[in-house]
């Protein structure tokens, strides 16, 4: 199962909010998981427990769903999640060099979280903004036409002062 590191009360609040927003039915499971994943950064074990209880869905099924979709994480993630588009159109316009630059600056590999818990680096499928590739997304910010030299400057925008 997944790891619990987030404060129990925070978890319950996040689940409660999502369940109230969408309704406690199985067909709202993915929207609920989406909201909780966004609120907490990942899906901790106690969140799945609570969703299981509220929706009356077995935990096995919850884990089956939350481990299937790429946007759900069953492991804690960094404060900022960097998504790198790895599809062909971004690849051919220099994506590989941007990726190398990201690895170089962050000193972590794909799917990993930095030691200080600040960054998680993941790859994503095509975002459909191929006209401005290579593309990276940090949290909800989209950066297009990224060059390897810009990586340092983009990362620096997520300094300590910014929440």
């Amino acid at each position, binding site marked *: 199962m997944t790891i619990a590191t987030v404060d129990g009360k925070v978890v319950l609040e996040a689940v409660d909010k999502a369940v109230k927003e969408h309704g406690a039915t199985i*067909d709202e499971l993915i929207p609920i998981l989406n909201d909780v994943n966004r609120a907490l950064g990942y899906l901790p074990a106690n969140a799945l427990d609570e969703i299981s209880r509220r929706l009356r869905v077995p935990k096995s099924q919850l884990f089956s769903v939350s481990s299937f979709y*790429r946007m759900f994480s069953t492991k804690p993630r960094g404060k900022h999640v960097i998504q790198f588009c790895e599809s*062909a159109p971004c690849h051919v316009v220099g994506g590989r060099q941007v990726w190398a630059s990201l690895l170089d600056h962050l000193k972590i590999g794909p799917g990993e979280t930095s030691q200080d818990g600040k960054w998680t680096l993941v790859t*994503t*499928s*095509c975002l*459909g*903004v191929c006209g*401005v590739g290579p593309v990276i997304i940090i949290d909800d910010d*989209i950066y297009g036409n990224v060059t390897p030299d810009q990586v340092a400057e983009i990362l620096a925008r997520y300094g300590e002062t910014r929440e």
Partner: protein
Amino acid sequence: MKYYRSHVLVCVDPDCLRKGAHEALDAFQDELVAQGLIDEVQVLETSRIGACSQGPEMMVYPEGVHYAGYTVDDIPYIVEEHFLKGRVAKKFELPAETAIDEELSAPTPKEVRVVLRNCGKIDPENIEDYIAEDGYMGLAKALTSMTPEQVIDEVLASGLRGRGGAGFPTAKKWQFCRASTGQVKYVICNADEGDPGAFMNRRVLEGDPHAVIEGMIIAAYAIGSSQGYVYCRAEYPIAVQTLNIAIEQARTMGFLGQNILGTDFSFDLEVRMGAGAFVCGEETALMASIEGKRGEPRPRPPFPAVSGLWAKPSNVNNVETYANVPQIITNGAAWYAGFGTEKSKGTKTFALAGDVKHTGLIEVPFGLSLREVVFDVGGGIKDDKGFKAIQTGGPMGGCLPEAYLDLPVDYESLTAAGSMMGSGGLVVMDDETCMVDIARFFMEFTQEESCGKCTPCRVGTKRILEILDRICGGEGREGDIELLETLCEQIKQDSLCGLGQGAPTPVVSTLKHFREEYEIHIREKRCPARVCKALIRYEILPDFCTGCTVCARNCPTGAITGERRQAHLIDVDTCIRCGICMQVCNFNAIVIR
């Protein structure tokens, strides 16, 4: 209706938003209020206008002046110059040639815009804009003057076929679903556009959402459904937002909900978001995902028309299919069938990508040749290099060589040639492309996206990828080609869904048309296109090298040695073939062997 002397379209595409489009928009509104112009100038939010890389951007009509690259602080200047003094704020004006839409430029003579007709022209967040373009006319016609059977007959006569790629006649699907027993039926729109490089559906959802909604309502009327879902991939947050706004407006206007247009037909619509899984574009996987399960496909039959979402009869069509429907009903089947070929009627949108001069979205009538698409619509090969291949049909499509350029673009011709129509990705490759590497690249994608439910797809794609990795890595063996052929055949025949069945196509088609490239990789350990890193080496031409040391200083592994003003040398064993030396050399002294 209120009269405005100016209309300003402000782009709120993700790219412009991150450059402060919203802040600038707020400032713009405030400034218009401050100058007393708010009743004279109408401000509309729209999707991409064209120069988002220089964004934020806005377009002022009727003058057609395109501004970009301003900040909040520049707004008072623009308002004063343009709207008070009536002259162009030159500082931020984009010259006409740069003011082109990077995704969707003006149609070339061979294009016909049916699905894309409104994109970039109307405000997608204002239903009145859509209505002004004859929007919801088709719905009104269908509901007030046609029976559901007549609607199906009209769509049948138009020859419309599924635009998601398979090309199944849309009206036939509707007939099956209508004929299925059951009170509850669902109409589902597949907006899980996952093919890398294909963004036709995103553009329609963001630019003309009501066309899709109207198409779905008409389909629901034809089938006898009262509930619909749009399943949109989570990678398209703006599309989801635009759709939700459009649905809300359609409800307010009485196009959705109880007793639509005063008739006794009722229908409502909800948006469901995916969570990042390519396979959910497969219709049975998509429905599993809406039900809150893992998005895994299941065997068919039963087909969705008989037992679909929650085991109820369901009709699943692609975004583009639905977007065609309102105009077929409004203008008549004969009008629509006037475009295209005998068996493939109408138009098709494509995302043209790769080594072609004009990349972006196009919409052409079926039957145009690949040559016309690449050279007339796409402007030919970038940097005037040679044409090598075109890949149609996305990651499960095939690569076709020059000999096939005169092939008409329609469902049957592409399938007969060993490729497929697919959802509409077209990737053009120039003569510096390695076809083995391309096959490997697409295999990497399908292998990663295989959901793992059935063995042929889960294990087979992995084995193919391993063999291709070996060939590109210079360790190809005699018998590899035959092994690939056997594997491809087995995966194609035995996989559960379209993902597995289509996964071998890039390999099969490149083996068919570019077999000698595989043979050279395996037997001569050479990459003719000089792409596969293990099979190439960088060399310095002593006659051209001036000994400037710039390559040696930039080499990340210290593989380059040599005295200043003496020809340098690359050590083959230390070199990692990154190509940096070649990029930095000012004398073209470095070549790939």
